[in-house]
C-alpha cells in the first residue's frame, strides 16, 4: 500500500488526479492542491471555538416571537422542543431536538476529538475515525432545519391582528453555528487520520 505522498504526488480534491508534489495546481483541472490542508488542525480548532461561542446566543436568545392578540411570546430552541413535546408531537420534538441540539454538540465534540487524536498521535483506528468524520460531514447541513422552519413559519403566520410570527436573533446565531461547524469539518484533513498508520503488507 503506497500513499500519494510516499510516491511524490499530491492528490486533487476536485478530480482525484495525481500531480507532482508541491506544484500547487492540479495538472488536470487546475484546482489548488496541497500535500495536506495547510494548518488543518489550527484552522479546525479555531472554527470549533467560534461555533461554541455562537452556540451561547443561539440558545439563550429567542429564535422566534409569536404575537397573539395583545400578548407576545418569545421562544428559544429548547423552549420550542418542550412545547412540541407537551403538545404530544413527539416525533417532531425529537427531530428538532436531534437536529438543533444533539447534532451541533455532537459535531463539535467529534471534530474536537478527531483533532485531539491526530495532534497527540493516538493509536485509534483510522477506519473508525474516518467513519465518524464521514457521519459528521454528512449530517452537517441537517441542523439548518430549525432555521428553515422559522423562515417558513414567519412567512405563513402573518394574520395581522390575530397572530404574527417574527424571526428572533437566535436564528442567525444558530445558522452561524451550523455554517461554522460545516467549515470546521471541511478544513479538517481526513488524510491526517491515516498518516500515522504503520506500513502494512498488502493483504
Amino acid at each position, binding site marked *: *500500500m*503506497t*500513499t*500519494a*505522498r510516499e*510516491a511524490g*504526488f*499530491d*492528490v*486533487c*480534491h*476536485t*478530480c*482525484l*488526479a*495525481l500531480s507532482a508534489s508541491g506544484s500547487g495546481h492540479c495538472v*488536470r*483541472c*487546475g484546482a489548488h492542491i496541497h500535500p495536506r490542508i495547510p494548518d488543518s488542525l489550527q484552522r479546525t480548532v479555531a472554527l470549533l471555538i467560534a461555533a461554541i461561542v455562537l452556540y451561547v446566543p443561539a440558545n439563550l436568545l429567542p429564535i422566534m416571537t409569536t404575537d397573539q392578540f395583545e400578548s407576545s411570546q418569545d421562544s428559544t430552541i429548547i423552549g420550542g422542543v418542550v412545547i*412540541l413535546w407537551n403538545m404530544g*408531537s413527539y416525533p*417532531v420534538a425529537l*427531530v*428538532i431536538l436531534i437536529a438543533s441540539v444533539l447534532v451541533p454538540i455532537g459535531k463539535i465534540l467529534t471534530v474536537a476529538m478527531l483533532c485531539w487524536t491526530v495532534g497527540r498521535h493516538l493509536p485509534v483506528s*483510522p*477506519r473508525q475515525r*474516518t467513519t465518524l468524520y464521514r457521519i459528521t*460531514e454528512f449530517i*452537517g*447541513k*441537517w441542523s*439548518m*432545519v430549525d*432555521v*428553515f*422552519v*422559522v*423562515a*417558513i*413559519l*414567519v*412567512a*405563513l*403566520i*402573518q*394574520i395581522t391582528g*390575530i*397572530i404574527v410570527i*417574527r*424571526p428572533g436573533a437566535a*436564528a*442567525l446565531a444558530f*445558522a452561524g453555528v451550523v*455554517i461554522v461547524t*460545516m467549515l470546521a469539518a*471541511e478544513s479538517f484533513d*481526513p*488524510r491526517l487520520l*491515516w*498518516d500515522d498508520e504503520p506500513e502494512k503488507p498488502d493483504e
Partner: protein
Amino acid sequence: MSETASVGCPECDLLGEVPSLVPGQRARCARCGYVLAVCYDDPYARAWSFSVAALVVLAIAFSFPFLSIAAAGVTNSMTLVQTVLYLSQYGADGIAVLVSIFVILVPVLMLVFIIALATALRADRFHPLLMAPTRWLFHLNGWAMVEVFAIGVIVSLVKLAAMARVSLGPSFWAYLAFTGLFLLAFSSMDRLTVWRDIERITTKTRPESGKG
C-alpha cells in the same frame, strides 16, 4: 470509463487504479472505502434530463402557494419568495440571504452548470470557460440544502397541524419533486468520469499533444 485511471484517494491519500467500470458499478478506495467513481449508462443524457426537469418543477414551486393556513376565519398562504421577503421585512436580512443562497441560489447555479457541462460533454466538446464552473460544481454540493428545506416544510406542517387547519399547495408537491430530481441530477455527474472526459477532449483538440 474506457481504461484504467491512476488516482489518489482524497480522504486517505492511498494510490489506486480505477478499472474500466460497467454501468451500475462503483470503485472504492482499497483502504478507507471512499467512493472514487460511479458508472452510469449515458451519464450526461441522464444528468441533463434530471436537471431540466428539476428547473421546470422549481418554476412551478415558485408560482403557487406552498402551504396555506386557516385560523379564526382568516386564511393566509405562503410562497417560496415570501419566506425570503418576510424575513427581510422583520430585519432578519442575514437569515433571508442565507435561505436564498442555500435553498435557491446554490441549487439553481449547480443545475445550470450541470446542463451546460452535460450538453458540451455529450457532444464531445468542451470550452475552457466551463473549467471553473466544473470545479465549483463539486465544491458547491455540500452547501445545497434542498432536501433540508423539504424536511423543514414537513416539520412546520406538523408543528402547525395541532393549532390550525393547514393545507398543502401545489408548490409543496412541486418542491418535493424538485428535491428528488436535484439529487438525481447531481449524483449522475460522477467527477472522475467528467474530468477524464474533459481531459480526453481537451488533449484531443490540441494536435501537438500526443498523450493518450
